[in-house]
């Protein structure tokens, strides 16, 4: 039987404490759940270097505040992952590296065992990921953690937003190796499914990746790019996009052109945030909880 977070908290007898102190479900799972429960944090679209105050009146403070929010958590995540657009793009290769260096020095203040990175098109599309790799390593990779397999895909280093044949081939052989008894979590910057193609919210060859992923019974995809929370299924695969840490974009149901949501002085940092994801080898569905950044 799958317990909801609320059920879990009730059963564990710490629900009141949890809600009154604002402790999150994912952390509670890590604290009081089975030994195999763990959680990680997803951050996305920090766009370091973006400085239009109309859309973020605190462009240099938002990321440090998110880092401080995570560092203040009583129970630390096993790792933090940034799903792309770490920096805002620039034509100047030196400025790009300056932004990456600054971004990385802030991200490294996270008091967690490991910080993982993925590129977004702003980081990697103008130089095929060259600067990104100098600072953050491979643009796509795999790892496993406590009985869960992870695959980070790169659908941004090609300015045409393609994974490309080489990466699809690698995904295919990886999928053949995976133990279906263990859950699979996929990270990417852009949505693999055509969420809103006329807003460029798609991956040119994403359908091929989804077809490969379909062979696995428990797949969850976490991505960014669209600067807001969004949840969608393609078959049995769940796709969850994360909020940005710079500005929200309009919801995909909006008519007309894509637009940024302006900063609201009455509600600063609204629409921005970080996400906790609780997982375990046995858990069928990832436990997701959105956290506001502390200001």
């Amino acid at each position, binding site marked *: 039987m799958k317990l909801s977070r609320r059920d879990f908290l009730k059963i564990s007898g710490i629900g009141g404490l949890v809600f009154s102190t604002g402790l999150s479900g994912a952390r509670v799972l890590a604290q009081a759940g089975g030994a195999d429960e763990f959680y990680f944090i997803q951050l996305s679209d920090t766009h370091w270097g973006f400085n239009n105050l109309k859309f973020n009146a605190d462009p240099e403070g938002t990321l440090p505040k998110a880092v401080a929010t995570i560092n203040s958590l009583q129970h630390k995540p096993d790792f933090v992952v940034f799903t792309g657009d770490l920096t*805002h*793009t*620039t*034509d100047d290769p030196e400025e790009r590296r300056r932004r990456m260096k600054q971004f990385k020095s802030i991200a490294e203040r996270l008091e967690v065992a490991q910080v993982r990175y993925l590129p977004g*098109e702003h980081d990697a*599309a*103008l130089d095929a990921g060259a600067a990104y790799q100098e600072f953050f390593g491979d643009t796509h990779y795999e790892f496993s953690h406590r009985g869960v397999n992870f695959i980070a895909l790169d659908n*941004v280093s090609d*300015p*045409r*937003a393609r994974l490309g044949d080489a990466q699809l081939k690698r995904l295919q052989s990886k999928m053949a190796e995976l133990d279906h008894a263990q859950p699979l979590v996929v990270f990417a910057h852009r949505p693999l499914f*055509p969420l809103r*193609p*006329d*807003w*460029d919210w798609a991956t*040119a060859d994403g359908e091929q990746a989804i077809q490969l992923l379909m062979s696995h019974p428990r797949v969850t995809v976490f991505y960014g790019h669209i600067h807001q929370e969004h949840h969608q299924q393609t078959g049995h695969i769940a796709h969850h996009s994360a909020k940005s840490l710079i500005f929200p974009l309009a919801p995909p149901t909006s008519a*007309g*052109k*894509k637009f940024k949501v302006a900063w609201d002085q009455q509600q600063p940092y609204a629409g921005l945030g970080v996400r906790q994801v609780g997982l375990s080898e046995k858990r069928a569905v990832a436990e997701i909880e959105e956290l506001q950044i502390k200001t």
Partner: protein
Amino acid sequence: MWPLLLAVAASSCTTLSGNEDPPRVVTLEARRFAYTPAVIELNKDQPVILELISKDGLHGFNAPQLGLRSDVAPQAPARLSFTPHEKGRFLFHCDIFCGSGHDEMSGEIVVVD
């Protein structure tokens, strides 16, 4: 979720049936980070040749609701021939990442009677 493909991308040697008008040629210029014109008004059922040219580097032209896409390169204009058969407003955007304003590089095709 999307309207049916409204336009049929025909070959550039479209044979004109009796009551169809000759193709109208519309030039669309791309430069970082805008298209000129940003809004293209077309007449329903009138064949069109869209001539795409870049004034700087490589861009894309993608109008997914119309089933149209092409690279937009400097020097060598690309041509897309089609006939819109449905009224409405259809977005197009640059789908080859081109820099800091790429996310805003878009336009609209408006098909009227």
